[in-house]
Protein backbone atom coordinates (compact mmCIF):
# COMPACT_ATOMS: atom_id res chain seq x y z
CA UNK A 1 0.00 0.00 0.00
CA UNK A 2 1.39 3.38 -1.02
CA UNK A 3 0.27 6.65 0.52
CA UNK A 4 0.87 10.28 -0.19
CA UNK A 5 2.36 11.55 3.04
CA UNK A 6 1.92 14.97 4.55
CA UNK A 7 4.45 15.41 7.37
CA UNK A 8 3.62 18.97 8.49
CA UNK A 9 5.88 21.62 9.96
CA UNK A 10 6.87 20.23 13.31
CA UNK A 11 7.66 16.73 12.21
CA UNK A 12 9.84 18.16 9.50
CA UNK A 13 11.92 20.34 11.80
CA UNK A 14 11.86 20.12 15.57
CA UNK A 15 10.70 16.54 15.56
CA UNK A 16 12.56 15.08 12.58
CA UNK A 17 13.27 11.90 14.46
CA UNK A 18 9.61 11.16 14.92
CA UNK A 19 9.04 11.51 11.21
CA UNK A 20 11.93 9.19 10.37
CA UNK A 21 10.88 6.61 12.90
CA UNK A 22 7.30 6.61 11.68
CA UNK A 23 8.42 6.04 8.11
CA UNK A 24 10.71 3.18 9.00
CA UNK A 25 8.05 1.57 11.15
CA UNK A 26 5.55 1.86 8.29
CA UNK A 27 8.08 0.30 5.97
CA UNK A 28 8.52 -2.57 8.35
CA UNK A 29 4.79 -3.09 8.18
CA UNK A 30 4.71 -3.01 4.39
CA UNK A 31 3.44 0.54 3.98
CA UNK A 32 5.13 3.06 1.73
CA UNK A 33 4.85 6.73 2.61
CA UNK A 34 5.66 9.00 -0.32
CA UNK A 35 6.12 12.53 0.91
CA UNK A 36 4.28 15.07 -1.22
CA UNK A 37 6.96 16.93 -3.20
CA UNK A 38 5.74 20.45 -2.53
CA UNK A 39 3.55 20.53 0.52
CA UNK A 40 2.89 23.74 2.37
CA UNK A 41 2.11 24.23 6.03
CA UNK A 42 -1.57 23.68 6.79
CA UNK A 43 -1.53 26.50 9.33
CA UNK A 44 -2.01 24.25 12.30
CA UNK A 45 -5.53 25.56 12.88
CA UNK A 46 -8.63 24.84 10.87
CA UNK A 47 -9.99 28.20 9.72
CA UNK A 48 -13.60 27.96 10.88
CA UNK A 49 -14.82 31.15 9.22
CA UNK A 50 -16.99 30.30 6.23
CA UNK A 51 -15.48 33.27 4.41
CA UNK A 52 -11.90 32.15 5.09
CA UNK A 53 -10.73 30.86 1.73
CA UNK A 54 -7.05 31.78 1.40
CA UNK A 55 -6.19 30.08 4.70
CA UNK A 56 -7.67 26.85 3.42
CA UNK A 57 -5.76 26.78 0.15
CA UNK A 58 -2.54 25.19 1.38
CA UNK A 59 -4.60 22.22 2.53
CA UNK A 60 -6.46 22.10 -0.75
CA UNK A 61 -3.13 22.01 -2.61
CA UNK A 62 -2.02 18.98 -0.63
CA UNK A 63 -5.36 17.28 -1.19
CA UNK A 64 -5.25 17.96 -4.92
CA UNK A 65 -1.70 16.67 -5.15
CA UNK A 66 -2.78 13.40 -3.55
CA UNK A 67 -5.77 13.19 -5.84
CA UNK A 68 -3.52 13.58 -8.85
CA UNK A 69 -1.40 10.71 -7.62
CA UNK A 70 -4.59 8.73 -7.00
CA UNK A 71 -3.43 8.07 -3.45
CA UNK A 72 -4.92 8.51 -0.02
CA UNK A 73 -3.31 11.26 2.00
CA UNK A 74 -1.61 10.00 5.15
CA UNK A 75 -0.95 12.29 8.11
CA UNK A 76 1.02 11.72 11.25
CA UNK A 77 0.25 14.89 13.18
CA UNK A 78 -3.23 15.31 14.68
CA UNK A 79 -3.39 19.00 13.86
CA UNK A 80 -2.54 18.48 10.20
CA UNK A 81 -4.98 15.63 10.11
CA UNK A 82 -7.71 17.78 11.59
CA UNK A 83 -7.13 20.70 9.25
CA UNK A 84 -6.81 18.62 6.09
CA UNK A 85 -9.82 16.50 6.87
CA UNK A 86 -12.06 19.44 7.67
CA UNK A 87 -10.96 21.44 4.64
CA UNK A 88 -11.57 18.33 2.58
CA UNK A 89 -15.04 18.10 4.04
CA UNK A 90 -15.68 21.74 3.15
CA UNK A 91 -14.58 21.06 -0.41
CA UNK A 92 -16.97 18.12 -0.59
CA UNK A 93 -20.00 19.68 1.06
CA UNK A 94 -19.78 23.47 1.04
CA UNK A 95 -20.55 24.71 -2.43
CA UNK A 96 -19.50 28.27 -1.74
CA UNK A 97 -16.09 27.35 -0.36
CA UNK A 98 -15.58 24.81 -3.12
CA UNK A 99 -16.39 27.27 -5.88
CA UNK A 100 -14.22 30.00 -4.47
CA UNK A 101 -11.25 27.75 -3.76
CA UNK A 102 -11.47 26.18 -7.19
CA UNK A 103 -11.77 29.56 -8.84
CA UNK A 104 -8.66 30.67 -7.02
CA UNK A 105 -6.64 27.58 -7.78
CA UNK A 106 -7.57 27.57 -11.49
CA UNK A 107 -7.31 23.80 -11.65
CA UNK A 108 -7.96 21.94 -14.84
CA UNK A 109 -10.33 19.67 -13.05
CA UNK A 110 -12.11 21.23 -10.08
CA UNK A 111 -11.49 19.58 -6.72
CA UNK A 112 -14.51 18.43 -4.75
CA UNK A 113 -13.12 16.51 -1.81
CA UNK A 114 -12.25 13.29 -3.64
CA UNK A 115 -9.10 12.53 -1.64
CA UNK A 116 -9.37 10.37 1.46
CA UNK A 117 -7.44 11.71 4.43
CA UNK A 118 -6.20 9.03 6.79
CA UNK A 119 -4.24 9.26 10.00
CA UNK A 120 -1.29 6.98 10.72
CA UNK A 121 -3.28 5.43 13.57
CA UNK A 122 -6.21 4.73 11.28
CA UNK A 123 -3.78 3.19 8.85
CA UNK A 124 -2.51 0.89 11.61
CA UNK A 125 -6.06 -0.02 12.60
CA UNK A 126 -7.80 -0.33 9.24
CA UNK A 127 -5.06 -1.20 6.78
CA UNK A 128 -2.37 -3.05 8.71
CA UNK A 129 -4.74 -4.25 11.42
CA UNK A 130 -3.84 -4.30 15.09
CA UNK A 131 -3.75 -8.09 15.12
CA UNK A 132 -1.18 -8.07 12.29
CA UNK A 133 0.76 -5.38 14.11
CA UNK A 134 0.80 -7.56 17.17
CA UNK A 135 2.32 -10.35 15.12
CA UNK A 136 4.98 -8.00 13.77
CA UNK A 137 6.05 -6.87 17.22
CA UNK A 138 9.44 -8.33 18.10
CA UNK A 139 9.99 -6.46 21.31
CA UNK A 140 6.66 -6.36 23.15
CA UNK A 141 6.47 -3.67 25.81
CA UNK A 142 5.14 -6.15 28.29
CA UNK A 143 4.26 -4.80 31.69
CA UNK A 144 4.38 -1.15 30.68
CA UNK A 145 1.33 0.79 31.80
CA UNK A 146 0.62 3.46 29.25
CA UNK A 147 -2.01 6.17 29.15
CA UNK A 148 -3.34 7.23 25.77
CA UNK A 149 -3.77 10.93 25.32
CA UNK A 150 -6.12 11.74 22.45
CA UNK A 151 -6.63 15.45 22.85
CA UNK A 152 -9.17 17.28 20.77
CA UNK A 153 -8.15 17.40 17.18
CA UNK A 154 -8.28 13.73 16.32
CA UNK A 155 -11.77 13.25 17.65
CA UNK A 156 -13.82 16.39 17.33
CA UNK A 157 -16.10 17.34 15.69
CA UNK A 158 -16.87 13.67 15.21
CA UNK A 159 -19.37 14.30 12.42
CA UNK A 160 -16.50 15.41 10.19
CA UNK A 161 -13.53 13.58 11.67
CA UNK A 162 -15.25 10.18 11.97
CA UNK A 163 -12.21 8.87 13.73
CA UNK A 164 -13.50 7.06 16.78
CA UNK A 165 -16.15 7.46 19.45
CA UNK A 166 -15.44 11.08 20.45
CA UNK A 167 -16.25 10.57 24.12
CA UNK A 168 -14.95 7.07 24.66
CA UNK A 169 -12.30 6.37 22.05
CA UNK A 170 -10.40 3.09 21.94
CA UNK A 171 -8.01 3.25 19.00
CA UNK A 172 -4.88 4.23 20.95
CA UNK A 173 -5.69 1.73 23.72
CA UNK A 174 -5.98 -0.95 21.06
CA UNK A 175 -2.65 0.23 19.69
CA UNK A 176 -1.09 0.00 23.14
CA UNK A 177 -2.36 -3.55 23.48
CA UNK A 178 -1.00 -4.41 20.07
CA UNK A 179 2.52 -3.38 21.06
CA UNK A 180 2.26 -5.57 24.13
CA UNK A 181 1.73 -2.94 26.80
CA UNK A 182 -1.20 -2.37 29.11
CA UNK A 183 -3.44 0.64 28.43
CA UNK A 184 -4.55 2.85 31.30
CA UNK A 185 -8.00 4.21 30.60
CA UNK A 186 -8.58 7.53 32.33
CA UNK A 187 -11.35 10.05 32.03
CA UNK A 188 -9.44 13.08 30.78
CA UNK A 189 -7.81 11.44 27.81
CA UNK A 190 -9.99 13.40 25.41
CA UNK A 191 -9.97 16.68 27.34
CA UNK A 192 -8.11 19.63 25.89
CA UNK A 193 -4.53 20.17 27.15
CA UNK A 194 -4.61 23.83 26.12
CA UNK A 195 -1.97 23.39 23.44
CA UNK A 196 -3.12 26.34 21.40
CA UNK A 197 -2.56 28.78 24.26
CA UNK A 198 0.73 27.36 25.36
CA UNK A 199 2.52 30.33 23.84
CA UNK A 200 0.45 33.03 25.41
CA UNK A 201 -1.40 31.77 28.39
CA UNK A 202 0.86 29.37 30.20
CA UNK A 203 -1.28 29.40 33.33
CA UNK A 204 -4.31 28.10 31.52
CA UNK A 205 -2.23 25.52 29.70
CA UNK A 206 -0.64 24.37 32.94
CA UNK A 207 -3.94 23.94 34.72
CA UNK A 208 -5.32 21.88 31.86
CA UNK A 209 -2.20 19.72 31.75
CA UNK A 210 -2.33 19.21 35.48
CA UNK A 211 -5.86 17.79 35.24
CA UNK A 212 -4.86 15.32 32.59
CA UNK A 213 -1.62 14.22 34.17
CA UNK A 214 -3.25 13.78 37.56
CA UNK A 215 -6.05 11.72 36.11
CA UNK A 216 -3.63 9.51 34.17
CA UNK A 217 -1.32 8.97 37.11
CA UNK A 218 -4.22 8.07 39.31
CA UNK A 219 -5.06 5.31 36.86
CA UNK A 220 -1.49 4.07 37.21
CA UNK A 221 -0.01 5.32 33.96
CA UNK A 222 3.78 5.31 33.77
CA UNK A 223 3.86 7.42 30.67
CA UNK A 224 1.57 9.03 28.15
CA UNK A 225 1.53 8.69 24.42
CA UNK A 226 0.02 11.15 22.02
CA UNK A 227 -0.35 11.70 18.31
CA UNK A 228 0.10 15.46 18.30
CA UNK A 229 3.49 17.20 18.60
CA UNK A 230 1.88 20.26 20.15
CA UNK A 231 0.14 18.20 22.83
CA UNK A 232 3.38 16.36 23.39
CA UNK A 233 5.27 19.59 23.96
CA UNK A 234 2.55 21.02 26.14
CA UNK A 235 2.12 17.92 28.26
CA UNK A 236 5.82 17.60 28.94
CA UNK A 237 6.84 21.25 29.23
CA UNK A 238 3.84 22.56 31.11
CA UNK A 239 3.56 19.73 33.55
CA UNK A 240 4.48 21.42 36.79
CA UNK A 241 5.30 18.12 38.43
CA UNK A 242 7.35 17.07 35.45
CA UNK A 243 7.11 13.45 36.42
CA UNK A 244 5.22 11.81 33.61
CA UNK A 245 7.13 11.15 30.42
CA UNK A 246 5.25 11.79 27.20
CA UNK A 247 6.07 9.95 23.99
CA UNK A 248 4.92 10.18 20.46
CA UNK A 249 3.06 6.98 19.72
CA UNK A 250 5.46 6.13 16.93
CA UNK A 251 8.40 6.14 19.32
CA UNK A 252 6.91 3.20 21.16
CA UNK A 253 5.91 1.62 17.88
CA UNK A 254 9.56 1.69 16.79
CA UNK A 255 10.63 0.25 20.08
CA UNK A 256 8.12 -2.58 19.83
CA UNK A 257 9.21 -3.31 16.27
CA UNK A 258 12.79 -3.48 17.44
CA UNK A 259 13.89 -0.27 15.79
CA UNK A 260 15.73 2.57 17.50
CA UNK A 261 14.20 6.00 17.87
CA UNK A 262 15.14 7.03 14.40
CA UNK A 263 13.83 3.78 13.11
CA UNK A 264 17.15 2.04 12.41
Amino acid at each position, binding site marked *: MVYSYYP*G*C*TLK*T*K*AKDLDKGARRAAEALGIVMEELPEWQ*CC*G*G*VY*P*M*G*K*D*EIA*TKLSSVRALVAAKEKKQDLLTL*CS*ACHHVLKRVNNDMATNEDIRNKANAYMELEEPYAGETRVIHYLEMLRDVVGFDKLKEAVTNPLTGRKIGAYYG*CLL*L*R*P*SKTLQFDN*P*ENPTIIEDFIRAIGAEPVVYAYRN*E*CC*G*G*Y*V*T*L*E*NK*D*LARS*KVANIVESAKEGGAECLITAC*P*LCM*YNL*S*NNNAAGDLPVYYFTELLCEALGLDKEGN
Partner: protein
Amino acid sequence: MENLEIARELERISGVNPRKCMKCGKCSGTCPAYDKMEYHPHQFVSMVETGRIEKLLESESLFTCLSCFACVERCPRGVEPANIIEAVRLMKIRPQNENHLHAEQIPELLDENLPQQAIVSAFRKYKK
Protein backbone atom coordinates in the same frame (compact mmCIF):
# COMPACT_ATOMS: atom_id res chain seq x y z
CA MET B 1 -25.73 48.63 22.52
CA GLU B 2 -27.32 46.27 20.12
CA ASN B 3 -25.97 45.86 16.69
CA LEU B 4 -28.04 43.39 14.77
CA GLU B 5 -26.33 44.09 11.50
CA ILE B 6 -22.99 42.97 12.88
CA ALA B 7 -24.72 40.05 14.50
CA ARG B 8 -26.06 38.84 11.18
CA GLU B 9 -22.62 39.31 9.65
CA LEU B 10 -21.22 37.09 12.39
CA GLU B 11 -23.82 34.47 11.60
CA ARG B 12 -22.71 34.58 8.01
CA ILE B 13 -19.02 34.22 8.85
CA SER B 14 -19.60 31.46 11.38
CA GLY B 15 -22.32 29.63 9.49
CA VAL B 16 -24.13 29.33 12.81
CA ASN B 17 -27.73 30.19 13.51
CA PRO B 18 -27.74 31.22 17.19
CA ARG B 19 -31.55 31.04 17.30
CA LYS B 20 -31.19 27.26 17.24
CA CYS B 21 -29.81 27.51 20.79
CA MET B 22 -32.23 26.30 23.50
CA LYS B 23 -30.18 27.80 26.35
CA CYS B 24 -29.31 24.51 27.97
CA GLY B 25 -25.78 25.57 28.86
CA LYS B 26 -24.16 22.31 27.91
CA CYS B 27 -21.43 24.21 26.04
CA SER B 28 -20.53 26.08 29.18
CA GLY B 29 -20.79 22.92 31.22
CA THR B 30 -18.31 21.40 28.84
CA CYS B 31 -15.85 24.26 28.34
CA PRO B 32 -12.35 23.54 29.71
CA ALA B 33 -11.42 27.24 29.68
CA TYR B 34 -14.59 28.35 31.43
CA ASP B 35 -13.00 29.74 34.57
CA LYS B 36 -10.63 31.94 32.60
CA MET B 37 -13.37 33.44 30.49
CA GLU B 38 -15.28 36.60 31.14
CA TYR B 39 -17.98 35.59 28.68
CA HIS B 40 -18.73 31.93 28.39
CA PRO B 41 -19.67 29.93 25.33
CA HIS B 42 -23.43 30.15 25.89
CA GLN B 43 -23.11 33.88 26.38
CA PHE B 44 -21.30 34.25 23.09
CA VAL B 45 -24.21 32.52 21.37
CA SER B 46 -26.84 34.51 23.16
CA MET B 47 -25.04 37.85 22.81
CA VAL B 48 -24.56 37.35 19.10
CA GLU B 49 -28.21 36.40 18.83
CA THR B 50 -29.28 39.63 20.48
CA GLY B 51 -26.62 41.79 18.87
CA ARG B 52 -24.61 42.67 21.98
CA ILE B 53 -21.35 42.43 20.11
CA GLU B 54 -19.26 45.28 21.39
CA LYS B 55 -18.60 43.79 24.79
CA LEU B 56 -17.55 40.58 23.17
CA LEU B 57 -15.17 42.34 20.84
CA GLU B 58 -13.43 43.93 23.80
CA SER B 59 -13.25 40.79 25.86
CA GLU B 60 -10.11 38.74 26.46
CA SER B 61 -12.37 35.69 26.34
CA LEU B 62 -11.91 35.73 22.60
CA PHE B 63 -8.37 34.53 23.05
CA THR B 64 -9.05 32.19 25.92
CA CYS B 65 -11.11 29.74 23.87
CA LEU B 66 -8.93 26.67 23.36
CA SER B 67 -10.63 25.63 20.10
CA CYS B 68 -11.06 22.16 21.50
CA PHE B 69 -14.50 21.77 19.87
CA ALA B 70 -15.96 20.03 22.90
CA CYS B 71 -18.87 22.50 22.84
CA VAL B 72 -19.45 21.77 19.16
CA GLU B 73 -19.33 18.06 19.80
CA ARG B 74 -21.77 18.06 22.70
CA CYS B 75 -24.29 20.72 21.71
CA PRO B 76 -27.67 19.00 21.42
CA ARG B 77 -28.94 21.57 18.94
CA GLY B 78 -26.01 21.60 16.52
CA VAL B 79 -25.25 25.25 17.29
CA GLU B 80 -21.40 25.16 17.16
CA PRO B 81 -20.47 27.82 19.76
CA ALA B 82 -16.76 27.54 18.85
CA ASN B 83 -17.55 28.77 15.35
CA ILE B 84 -19.30 31.81 16.80
CA ILE B 85 -16.34 32.60 19.03
CA GLU B 86 -13.99 32.23 16.09
CA ALA B 87 -16.17 34.55 14.00
CA VAL B 88 -16.07 37.23 16.70
CA ARG B 89 -12.31 36.74 16.96
CA LEU B 90 -11.96 37.18 13.22
CA MET B 91 -14.06 40.30 13.37
CA LYS B 92 -11.80 41.61 16.09
CA ILE B 93 -8.47 40.99 14.39
CA ARG B 94 -9.36 41.65 10.78
CA PRO B 95 -9.20 45.45 10.93
CA GLN B 96 -5.73 46.96 10.61
CA ASN B 97 -3.56 47.15 13.69
CA GLU B 98 -5.88 44.96 15.71
CA ASN B 99 -3.66 41.89 15.74
CA HIS B 100 -3.59 40.19 19.06
CA LEU B 101 -0.16 38.72 18.53
CA HIS B 102 2.78 40.49 16.95
CA ALA B 103 5.87 39.02 15.41
CA GLU B 104 8.03 41.10 17.76
CA GLN B 105 6.60 39.25 20.72
CA ILE B 106 7.72 35.89 19.48
CA PRO B 107 11.41 35.78 20.51
CA GLU B 108 10.64 36.24 24.16
CA LEU B 109 7.96 33.55 24.04
CA LEU B 110 10.22 30.96 22.47
CA ASP B 111 11.80 28.11 24.30
CA GLU B 112 14.02 25.49 22.81
CA ASN B 113 11.44 22.71 22.63
CA LEU B 114 8.59 24.83 21.36
CA PRO B 115 7.29 23.24 18.18
CA GLN B 116 6.71 25.37 15.06
CA GLN B 117 3.15 24.38 15.24
CA ALA B 118 2.63 26.47 18.36
CA ILE B 119 3.79 29.62 16.63
CA VAL B 120 2.09 28.94 13.31
CA SER B 121 -1.22 28.23 14.93
CA ALA B 122 -1.01 31.20 17.25
CA PHE B 123 -0.44 33.43 14.26
CA ARG B 124 -3.35 31.86 12.45
CA LYS B 125 -5.63 32.45 15.36
CA TYR B 126 -4.54 35.80 16.64
CA LYS B 127 -3.18 37.71 13.68
CA LYS B 128 -4.35 38.70 10.23
